[in-house]
């Protein structure tokens, strides 16, 4: 029987960050992963706190942190750990040659594929808006056949944003000739640019439509690997600045971030088990002894001194919703939810209020251990991180990856 120091359940951003922080503390870690969480959906942009209750934009992520409600995970984690976690995350990125820009004291408003701006905290350099803000003329570049990017939508809507209205926009298209009877996603274009031939061909096509000195908004396609080679080569060849937008899945920026973190973890001796469906746990007197995975072949039991539960919320399967109740499937931890299902959701999908259902989740103490309604710790060696936590609506607040990083870090530090 092999026993680990820590078994992390979940291979999304919260789980990977928890594993990273644990190895830094010299722990022997295994990650049980089933997919990549929301990394390939929301992507590699680290939102920390964009909007407060009432839909009021926070002046800075830092200012936003001061104004969260009592049940919010940030309240439990506390300011110092949040700051440390962000610093730690940026360190990893730096070390891996894929550094992120931004800090807690500045809100970054980045362009989206819908032609809106969204407030965030940390972004890869491919989303740096410094030159975009200065430019008088902006080119919005699309790829023929890419069905998830519409440059005219961006150009038109930016004209409605006061700070962007004075700029001149030009929409240009290039044809990557990738279609050949099948559907084309941003991932296809990014893979095309990963290759030397693809990149050279793209530069040739762009040369005809993008004058030197341009600032160019493009979909997130600047390579699938966690480095800035594609961006640098393109910019060098064309004398332009490229800015990727936040966009719909599949998220290339999220893919890069995941690739980078997995590489970092493997270098640091973390074992990652893919396709691991954790079905149940063995608990003795408020301590988890092991978790058991189900697979096509057989059950496997993973023993550890501590466990980090980072298997997501409703999307990831860490929480299961039924009419009027929520189930946490591995430890059967209590989740407070209205029995009247009508109270779970607002009538309007979009409004100035967060959605009640999005805030359903597990209660924890400041060490991220699950607690009952009276605040009593239920499991001494289980620490919770990520979307299964109670009290925040990641979509509404724009706080998803920030909570993942901070809670993952805090969980690992509390072990």
């Amino acid at each position, binding site marked *: 029987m092999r026993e680990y120091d820590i078994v992390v359940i979940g291979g999304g951003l919260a789980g990977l960050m928890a594993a990273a922080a644990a190895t830094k503390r010299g722990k022997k870690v295994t990650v049980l992963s089933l997919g990549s969480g929301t990394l390939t959906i*929301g992507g590699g942009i680290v939102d920390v706190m964009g909007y407060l209750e009432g839909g009021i934009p926070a002046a800075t992520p830092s200012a936003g942190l001061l104004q969260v409600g009592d049940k919010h995970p940030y309240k439990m984690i506390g300011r110092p750990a949040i700051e440390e976690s962000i610093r730690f995350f940026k360190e990893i990125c730096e070390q891996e040659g894929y550094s992120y820009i931004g800090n807690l004291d500045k*809100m970054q408003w980045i362009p989206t594929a*819908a032609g809106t701006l969204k407030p965030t905290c940390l972004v890869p350099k491919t989303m740096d808006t410094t030159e975009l803000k200065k430019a008088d003329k902006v080119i919005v570049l699309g790829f023929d056949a890419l069905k998830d990017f519409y440059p005219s939508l961006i150009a038109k809507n930016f004209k409605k944003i006061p700070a962007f209205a004075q700029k001149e926009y030009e929409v240009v298209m290039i044809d990557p000739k990738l279609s050949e009877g099948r559907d084309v996603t941003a991932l296809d274009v990014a893979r095309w640019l990963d290759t030397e031939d693809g990149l050279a061909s793209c530069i040739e096509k762009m040369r005809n439509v993008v004058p030197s000195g341009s600032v160019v908004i493009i979909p997130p396609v600047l390579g699938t690997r966690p480095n800035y080679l594609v961006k640098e080569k393109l910019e060098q060849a064309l004398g332009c600045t490229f800015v990727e937008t936040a966009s719909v899945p599949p998220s290339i920026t999220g893919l890069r971030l995941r690739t980078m973190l997995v590489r970092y973890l493997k270098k640091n001796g973390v074992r990652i088990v893919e396709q691991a469906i954790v079905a149940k746990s063995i608990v003795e007197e408020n301590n988890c002894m092991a978790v058991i995975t189900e697979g096509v072949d057989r059950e496997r039991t993973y023993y550890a001194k501590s466990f980090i539960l980072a298997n997501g919320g409703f999307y990831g399967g860490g929480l299961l919703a039924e009419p009027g109740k929520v189930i946490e499937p591995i430890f059967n931890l209590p989740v407070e939810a209205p029995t009247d299902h009508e109270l779970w959701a607002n009538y309007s999908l979009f409004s100035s209020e967060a959605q009640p259902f999005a805030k359903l989740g597990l209660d924890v103490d400041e060490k991220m251990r699950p607690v009952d309604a009276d605040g009593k710790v239920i499991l001494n060696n289980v620490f919770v991180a990520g979307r299964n936590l109670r009290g925040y609506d990641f979509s509404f607040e724009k706080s998803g990856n920030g909570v993942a990083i901070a809670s993952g870090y805090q969980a690992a530090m509390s072990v």
Partner: protein
Amino acid sequence: MTGPGLCPVSFISFLKRGIEMQKTTVVVIGGGATGVGILRDLCMRGVDAILLEQQDLAYGTSSRYHGLLHSGGRYAVKDAEAGKECIEENTILRRIGRHCVEQTEGFFARTHLDDEAFEGKWVEACAKVGIPTIPISVEEALRLEPNLSPKIKSVYRVPDAAIDGFRMVWQNVASARKYGGRVLTYTTVIGIEHSNNQVVGIKVRNTLTGEVSNIACDFIISAAGSWAGEIAALAGISVNVQPDRGTLIAFNHRITSRIVNRLRPASDGDIFVPHGSITILGTTSASVNKPDDTVPNAKEVVELLNIGEALFEDIRSYRMLRAFAGTRPLYSADPNATGRGASRGFVTLDHAHDGLKGFVSVVGGKFTTYRLMAEKVTDLVCGYLNVKTPCRTAEENLVEDTSPALMAKARLYFPAYGAELAASRLGSEGLEKVIARIQEKPEKRQLLCECENVTMAEVEEAAADSTSYMISDVRRKTRMGMGTCQGAFCTFRSVGAVDANGLSWGKDTNVLFKEFLQGRWKGIRPILWGNVMREMELTRGIYEGTLNINGAIDNEGI
């Protein structure tokens, strides 16, 4: 897109021409089954007519029901005449509506919870009105429909069929247009103009532009369904229509290949109807104050699942797509009212008896008998207009078949399964146009909506139709956004496509996003658990989290 419903004179350009008044002989109010049936019948008899719809075609009850083309079995015991009308119309619609009817046949199954005594009464009543009922063994029934509960006690086969409400309405309009019929959508009636107790015109408002205009006419037929009371009130006439909300669930499985009715006195949650790859379970019944109270709730859904379990034990393991609700227009006659029509299933009210000539309301009835209702009303109106041409709506098909040559061409551009679907959605003319778009730009063959197999070219064609003003209008024409993901991926693409095509209604894309996603949300909210919840977290992650549709235009900090 075929553009059934394309008005020869587009409403917008009509308004731009100023106060010039439109003229017609008959104005039909209501773009549901009855209204379009009347429009078609009038036009086929050579009567000039305009149909007005306050929303989009089939926006009301005609698309908010289970889509069952009744054999009449459901009514045979309680209302023999309605049962007889159903079987007759059912036979006609199978013939003329081949492209909107799926001939599934139906089962009437008695569960262990249902009264055995009713069975004999039912068989007898069906025989009396000519509805064939063929008893089969439970073993045979389970062989044909393996998902049925093995606890069922007895089963009969009946000639039920599934009918696509949207398509049926569009195809009636397409047919009417061939005979000169005109349709104005998003046009609400705000006044009935009369002189010397005779209708002379109608005052309308375009609900999108707010502009008001008049249409001169000799006759007004209100086929406004649950809204009939409100229309009559504009002329100071009382029509007592009580809207009754029925909630239904759409499942993302063909749970059954046949319609399955519960063999008991008609009640809640006892009909399952397969449509293509989905199944609809209905219905609840609750009296409501407003005809547009079509917001379903979680309690109704849970009730339906509880009841539905008697026929399909695994009902809770099937993925739901959404819940939806419509209002039945239940008519109760004022004892003092006169001028009632002959049938008990529906009622034709000639308001000449109320002192206003040239105004008729048709109320009650059901989808299955829409054609018959239309025929009766048109007979009445033609009598007044001295038009002798007989009704031919039962003889002529709604739309023509797509030629084998065109289908062969379509298969070159559509995915195999998609070609048949597209042909049946679009009709020949529309299919031709979509193929032309793909020939011009081959990448337009890509699927904009993967769930429902809808190509980019088809969405662009539907969006360019003069009756499209929002993404939901495109959805009703193409089925985009109606599958498993309920708009998670296709909303962005369709808004992008509308914008890229420079369509006039695509100016405020944020409004387009919100309108469409809110429409989807209405049906998701009451079933927000299981995989539906998972999907919703994804959808919000995309549109609220990443694209910040909610925060919209913020210029903070930049």
